[in-house]
Structures are given as structure tokens and as C-alpha cells.
């Protein structure tokens, strides 16, 4: 092994480690819902290459209103899926789409894009 090979190997392994850590183990952006005057838990979510925030905490038994603003045209994020709530919605680009639901059970419910690559979750307490 020459020096270049050693450098390439070390950089490669470090890069691979970084990718794994960055996508799987780093901290997520969590947000709690804000309850409005009418008792509805409202959350604004921006969709741009992912969901931000992507972990949303809400309380059980109170209606939840999620406003998804899709800030891009890229086709991957055009569909929103919340399988536990039977929701499939088209998110038009640069528009806000409202999704209402009533969480009855506590737990963590994922929401994803149509192909399951972009991921977020609704944590019901």
C-alpha cells in the first residue's frame, strides 16, 4: 500500500462513517404542537427535501391540524402518506396543504413521502 492508498482508505472509511452517523444517528428536529384558542393542536411543517420539523409531538384525543407547506417542485415530496391515519394527500408545490386528524392512541406514527424516503413522525402522548 502506498501513501495515496492509505489516505484514500482512511478518507473513505471516515466518509462512510459520517454518512451513517449523519443520516441515522444524529439528533432530529423535534417540535411540539401549539394549541390554538379553539383547542386545536396546530403545527406548521415545511417540506423541502425533508420535513422540518420532522418529529412532532401532540397530545392524545385532541384534534391536530398539520399545515404542510411544500417549498419545492422536486417530485419526491409531492405525495404525503400517513398510513396509520389512512391519509394520502397530494402536496401542490409552493402551497399549504392542511391535514386534519384526531389521534386516539398514544404512540409514534410515521409519515413519509410516496416512496417512503422522506420521513417524519407524529409522536402522540
Amino acid at each position, binding site marked *: 500500500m502506498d501513501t495515496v*492508498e492509505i489516505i484514500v482508505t482512511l478518507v473513505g472509511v471516515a466518509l462512510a462513517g459520517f454518512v451513517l452517523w*449523519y*443520516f441515522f444517528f444524529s439528533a432530529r428536529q423535534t417540535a411540539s404542537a401549539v394549541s390554538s384558542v379553539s383547542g386545536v393542536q396546530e403545527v406548521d411543517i415545511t417540506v423541502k427535501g425533508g420535513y422540518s420539523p420532522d418529529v412532532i409531538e401532540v397530545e392524545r384525543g385532541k384534534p391536530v391540524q398539520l399545515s404542510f407547506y411544500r417549498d419545492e417542485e422536486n*417530485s419526491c415530496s409531492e405525495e404525503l402518506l400517513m398510513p396509520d391515519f389512512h391519509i394520502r394527500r397530494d402536496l401542490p408545490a409552493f402551497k399549504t396543504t392542511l391535514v386534519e386528524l384526531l389521534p386516539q392512541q398514544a404512540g409514534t406514527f410515521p409519515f413519509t413521502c410516496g*416512496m417512503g*424516503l422522506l420521513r417524519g413522525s407524529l409522536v402522540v402522548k
Partner: protein
Amino acid sequence: METDLKTETLDIEGMTCASCASFVEKSLARTPGVQRAMVNFATEKATIDYLPAQATPATLRQAVVQAGYGVLERAPDTSAADRQAEIDQQKAHAYQQLRRRFWVAAGLALIIMPLSMLMLWPAAMQRINMQWLNYGLLLLTLPVLLYSGREFYTSAWNGFRHRAANMDTLIAVGTGAAFLYSLAATVVPEFFRSRGLTPEVYYDTTATIIALILLGKVLELRAKTQTSAAMKALIGLQAKTARVVRPGGQELDVPIEQVQLGDLVVVRPGEKVATDGLIEEGHSAVDEAMLTGESLPVEKKAGDPVFGATLNKTGSFRFRVTKVGADTMLAQIVKLVEDAQGSRAPIQRLADKVSAIFVPTVVVIAILTFVLWFDLAPIETRLPLALVNFVAVLIIACPCALGLATPTAIMVSTGKGAEHGVLIRNAEALEKAYQVNTVLLDKTGTITRGEPAVTDFVPAAGQDAARLLQLVAAVERQSEHPLAAAVVRYAEAQQAASAPATGFRAIEGQGAEATVNGQAVLIGNSRLLDEAGIVLPVAVRQQADALLTQAKTVLYVAVAGQAAGLIGVADTVRDTSVAAIRRLQSMGLEVVMMTGDNPQTAAQVARQVGITRYFAEVLPGGKAGKVKELQAEGRIVAMVGDGINDAPALAQADIGLAMGGGTDVAMEAAGITLMRSDLQGVVTAIELSRQTIRTIKQNLFFAFLYNSLGIPIAAGLLYPVFGWLLSPMLAAGAMALSSVSVLTNSLRLRGFTPLKP
């Protein structure tokens, strides 16, 4: 200060469920000056009483907008069809843009490819300045990268910032690496030469990959729009206008959104029924195939329900509106199908897990591929080989096929099911129906019609059949008893002449009497004749006993104080039941019957329809228990029922099929609702689920195979054995085809037609 209240009506846009309506209502109620706000979700209208001194229509609108909804200014037109049209328009626009980007990339790639080949041609090499050629190629590749491929890079960057990786990440990193390497070789070739490397460029690779992937996306988008075609057709059935009769009697065409509960609507021959209601006058045959899948038109008369979007054939009638907007049958079907399409099948779970970790894992594999090739390949070719294989791994590993495998099949098949009157509640129901090996039928209402019909008409000796039927029908037309209705239906089917009846009297628990053509006619049970002192001749009594042993209800008829004949009434087997049961059995399913009737009746019906196993004398509360009993034998049970009392059994079964549009309770408990009232729907539902799950399995198999073979080959695993390497351009071609082939396979479900017996 005194002010008059003013009332304003706003058309609200964007409400998707009842809770939306309460959001708007609350927001309006909080607005200063508003005394009362009412929002109707079904009609999408808000009615607001307000003080003009404190509020204006503009501030009211603002309140609605603040709640996150829109107000339509004029021409209220927010039907599902229009919302769909707007989304469609946006998609069509995106499709046009995508096509343009593809053609730019394809056109430039077609120029770049032959120019790159020049290098392989020694004679040309000597005449052309390599340096200049490379700069030329760079200029040609830039538009491909910056115009056609821009979305990949922005999307990958956005995803990276959100710690999410999508398929664009792979394409962006792959083509980006090839491009940056080529750029370095073009701008600083000396750096490569001084290290004993030929400064090779990969502009053709970059441009071709982008062109091919865009081609894949174009084909994918085109196919994807077809997956929801059935659904769109369903939404498109909604009528646009209704001809409403105003209190003055004048008829007026109004937009469907303005039709209100209680309106009287006229439907003429050949017109669509505007919304749900009850017929007040007139009669007609209505084609309800769009809702029930039943191709024969249904006879309708005063008192019968009609449904929006169905087609009036022959007659003309007026109906009273009972449901509008989201409450109509069509809207509920659309909602149910949409819900099903938003659900995920358990079979998809593994694919979901793989999808979630897919992209970062592939990036890691690609990096390790690069390192290994760099370390193991001969020193003079290690950099290009490592690069080419790195790019190939990234490009071939497309998770689209995996992600599209299940949802596209579910989209097509739930839409297709609705077309045939089979409403699937969710993807899980579809999967359960596929696994079923036993079908439990509740006799009444599923195998049989669930309403009495005349099976035997026996005139006593010396009686003229036609005349007797005329007399009987004349009396029974006056009666409201269900058995009387069966007699009248029979008489009408036999085209018996009508006669006027006078002095009609119903005798509680026994029957009825009236005078027809001057003769006293009695119809009822044996006690009625007994109490009238009429003696039954022996022959008649024997015939009555024969009917009773067949578990039929017997009506006795007396004319002018003499026993005149018998009528046997029973719940009859539907015309389609025998064929459908045979079809289910030939599909390898065991069909079991359950009934509240006595064992003799049960045995007779079972024999008639070809069922060998049945449960008799099952009390309504015991139905769920029978399902459990079968499940305890290790069977996977589909329960078919129609009534409210079937709900616990429908819920207990592995999959419940509620029949005949079903009551709401039965529908709630059932995984599948059959709009058609016959067993053919059960065949269609199970057949459809089998085809769908088969398609999903094929899709998943293909997607997993594609990735599990594609990635190692691209990484160069076959190189040591066969000397094979996968060109990144080939990888791009395979990737473009993978999702398209999964989609095409799912779209084959559009050709599903239920097998007719």
C-alpha cells in the same frame, strides 16, 4: 347604538373534513362584530350574522384565510372534481417541464456521445486538439447539468440539510462525481499527466445518465397518472347542474353546489341524477352501474331512493333531495377509496424498512467500492476504475421500484374494485381477502333475497287461476303487510287484471278481507278461515301440509265463504347464488352457510345451492361465535352478511364483506363493502384481491432482485470472475426501466374483469 345584523354567506375552499368546518367556525366566531357563525362542511358554506359597524365581508374573509382556508369569490365551484382538476393541471405542467428537460438532455447527449468517441479513433486524435475538444464537451455538458439536471442537485442538497436522502441524492452524487473528475481533467490535465494518468473525461457518462434518468421519470410520471384513472373517472361522474322545481312550480337549472336539502329536483330521460334523494312522483329505470357495478337498470318508483351520478334511462321523475355534497353515496365511495389508497398493506412492511435505510446504505457501499477498487486495481487505472464503479453503484441502486411496488397496485385495484361495486376499506383488507380459505355466508339476504316471494299459487279444484289471482291481488294491494307485497309483486309479474276492492279490513295477526266484484274475499292464515267457519276440503289441507313441510308460509284464500286456494310464500334463492357459490368452490374455497332457520329449511337451501356444510338455528347473537368456531379449526374466514346484527360476526371474521350497500354499522365492521346485492360481488372481491396481491408480490420480487443483483454487479463483483464491469450508462438505463416496469405490471390490473359464472 343600535345596528341591524347583517348576514353574509361565504363559499369556503379547502375543507377536507368536519373538523375543518369547526376551525373556520371558531375563527369566524372570534372575529369582532360576529354574532353567530355557522359552517356547513357538506355544502362548504359559512353563514355569518354580523354587525356591519364592526365587521365587513372583507374582515370575515380574512378570518377564514387566517384559519388556513380560502374563500371563493364568485361562481362557487369547489367540488372534488375541481380540486382534482387543479392538481391535475399542476401535474400536467410539471410533466411538460420534465419532458422539455429530457429533450434538452437527450439532444445534447446525442452530440456529446459521438464527439467523445473521437478519442477512440487514432487518425482523428492526431488532427484534433484534445484540450479544445474537452472544453467543447464541457460547454455542451453544462446545460445538461444546470438546466436538465438541476432539480437533482437542489433536491439532494435540500435532503442533505434535512438529514434525509432520496433517490436524487444518488443521482446527484453519481453524476456530480463524474462531472467534477472530468472538469479537473479538462482544466488541469498536467496534474494527471505528471502522475502517469491519462486525463480522461466522462462528459458523455454524465450527460447520458441524466438523459436516461429523465426518460425514466417521464415514463414513470405518464404511467403514474394512469394509476388513479379509475378514481378520477368516479369523481368525474358527479353532475354539474340540477333542475330544481321552485315553490312557484317553475323549473330552474342551478349549479349542483347550490342544491339544498329538501329541494325538489326533476330528472328527465337520459339525464344524470344530480344528488341523492327519494322519488316523489314518476317512475323510471335507472342505471346504477357506476355505483354498484350491476349492469342491469333498476326499476324505481315513488318512495324509492335514487343516487347522484346514476343515469336515468327511460322515464322521468321528481325527487326530494335528502343528501348533498360530501354526504352523498358517490362522495362516500370516493372517500372510502381514497382512504384505502392512503393505507399500507402489511406485505409492504419489509419494503418500507428497506426504503428507510436504502439511500445512505448505498452511498456507503459506493464509497467502499471506490476505496476497494482504488486499493486493488493497477496503479495506472485505479482512479478511473474506482470512479466508474462508484458512479455505477450509485446510479443503479434506485429505490423507486421498491417504493412503487405496493402503492401503485393498490391504487389501480381499489379504483377498479369501485368500478365493479366492490369497496375495499384498506390495503390490509385486500391482503386478508387473498389469504381466505373459507367463506361463511349468512343465508338470509345473501344467498336468498331476504324478502318473501310467492313460490306456489294453488287454486282449489274448480277455481279459475287467473280470476282468483285477480281477486287476491285486489285485496292485497290495499294491505301494508310484507306478505301482501309479495303477493302483489307476483300478481304483477303474472300480469293479472286489476279490479277494485271495497270494504277492506285488516284483521290483526290473521289476514285481511274485502269485497271484490261483489264477492267477499278472505286472505290469511288458517285461523282466519276457521273463525269465519269455513271448512277446508281434504285435498286443500294436504296441499297446505306439503307446503308447510317445505318450510313455506301458507296463505289461505276463501271466496264467497268457500275455500278457494292456497298461496305458498318463502324467501327465495337469488338467481346468481348457485353460480357464484360454484365459482367460489372452484377457486378452492370452502363455502359454509349459516342461518337462523330450522335444520330442514337449512338443509334444503344448502342442497339447492350446492353447499355441504351449514349451521342451522343460529341466533343473531351467536353468529360471531360460529365465525370463531371456524377460526378455531385453523381456517381463515371471510364472513358475508348484510344486516346490523351481522356486525359482530363481520368484525370477528378475518375479513368481513358487507353486502348490498350495507347499513353504516355493517360497513364500519366490514373490510370490504359490496354495493351489489348478490354473491357475484364476493367472487369479484376475492378474485380482485388475489390478482392484486399476486401483482404486488411480482413487483416486490422484481424490485428486490433488481437491487440485490444490480448493486454487486455495479460494484464489480463479477470482474474477478468474468471481467465484467457495469458501465454507468447501462446502469442508468436499467434504473430508468426498473420503476417503469413495476408500474407497467401494476397497470395490468386495469384490465381486471370479474369472471362471470
